[in-house]
């Protein structure tokens, strides 16, 4: 179930629709890093990095990298007007104080209750949780963008996570290449499908009970 650049960008584009003017947004690595490419230029958004940046801009041109200006993954970034640097304690203060509006991150599994498992790859070494727990617990809105299936073809949306949890009951929205799901108090709800997938296909391919919203959106892009 490898995904081409088009499918990845489709998911990133859908995630970008959740970002509104003035928001503070933290992006994980992978597909979430594609989200800024899809934001309308009139939006004023502040991208936050755990190491101590608010207001990251685009990647620098080749050869223009500054070794002292990197994101939390250690890769060079630039900044936009209005950016600021702070120490890591303050950067996480923003997270725990509830000042991050949206975090968009990848996952290994998400349960129908919004439980998130995204930090221990089975069979691999334990990397440590980094800042994932704080973001998952404390961001106002947690959006998971991930492949619908793992490498064995099993649904990564599950009734109960089998992998170690990053945080329980924290995910608000799941975006996969098949559709968009919202975690509600009454369970998982399919709210949108990426065409040409059908509602029936998507619910069938999802590893837990899924309700379907009344007026489902069918995404054409």
């Amino acid at each position, binding site marked *: 179930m490898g995904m081409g650049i088009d499918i990845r960008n489709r998911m990133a584009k859908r995630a970008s629709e959740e970002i509104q003017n003035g928001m503070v947004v933290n992006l994980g690595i992978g597909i979430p890093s594609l989200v800024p490419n899809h934001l309308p230029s009139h939006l004023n958004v502040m991208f936050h990095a755990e190491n101590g940046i*608010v*207001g990251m801009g685009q990647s620098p041109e080749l050869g223009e990298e500054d070794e002292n200006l990197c994101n939390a993954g250690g890769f060079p970034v630039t900044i936009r007007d*209005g950016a*600021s640097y702070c120490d890591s304690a303050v950067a996480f203060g923003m997270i725990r*104080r509830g*000042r991050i509006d949206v975090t968009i991150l990848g996952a290994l599994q998400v349960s129908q209750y919004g439980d998130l498992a995204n930090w221990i790859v089975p069979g691999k070494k334990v990397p440590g949780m980094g800042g994932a727990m704080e973001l998952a617990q404390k961001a106002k809105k947690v959006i998971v963008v991930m492949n619908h299936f793992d490498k064995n073809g099993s649904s990564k949306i599950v009734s109960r996570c089998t992998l170690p949890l990053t945080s329980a009951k924290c995910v608000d929205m799941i975006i996969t290449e098949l559709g968009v799901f919202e975690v509600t108090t009454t369970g998982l709800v399919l709210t949108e499908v990426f065409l040409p997938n059908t509602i029936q296909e998507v619910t069938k391919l999802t590893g837990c009970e899924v309700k379907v919203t009344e007026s489902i959106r069918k995404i054409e892009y």
Partner: protein
Amino acid sequence: MEKLFGKLTNLEKVMPFFHDGMSLMFGGFGGVGSPPSLIDAIIEKNVKELVLIGNDTGFPHIGIGKIVSLGRAKKVIASHIGSNPVAGKLMNEGKMEVEFSPQGILAERIRAGGVGLGAILADIGMDNEMVSAGKPRFILNNKEYLIETALTAEVSIVFAKKADPYGNLIYDKSARNTNPLVAMAGDITIAEVEEIVPLGSLNPDEIMTPGVFVDYVIPSKGVNWKWAWE
């Protein structure tokens, strides 16, 4: 540039956030670094029964002292009220409750609230009744500590030298004092500033309070009280 983030506004627009009985945290140390225009507007609106949280109660006619002296606070959490005799009088008459916290512990309690922690463990004033009364104790590695709870407030007001439209703040010299801590601890934080500069004109290394913590920025009319040393 005002519309970029919707934070640049004026006194009138932020006044609805102030109401009777609210908790209000203020920056400043002996009045230095306290926001004069916001304080005057709160007095003018006749906001009462305030729970005030900050380093001290200023002087009778300086800083937050102006509000305290009018009897508008039902409770104050501070480290010192000695420079405002009216505060002491109100406390002794039972008209205003005062919770004292050692100065640095108060600063840390405010900061803890500001960065989303529940409390800190400290060993200051363990044996002092006024400090330790009612506070749980905890033994860690054979040493006893007081559990000092984090403080937040419905609204925080701070005073800065410069702000940009995102609410990034730079304070001036010792007027910084508790302001960066208080700015983080408000559910809503309002910054009164001496100068508003364009986005991108502040050096990002020199910003003391990132705008993430600031909801509104209003221009200051400037300090209008006479300092004790004048």
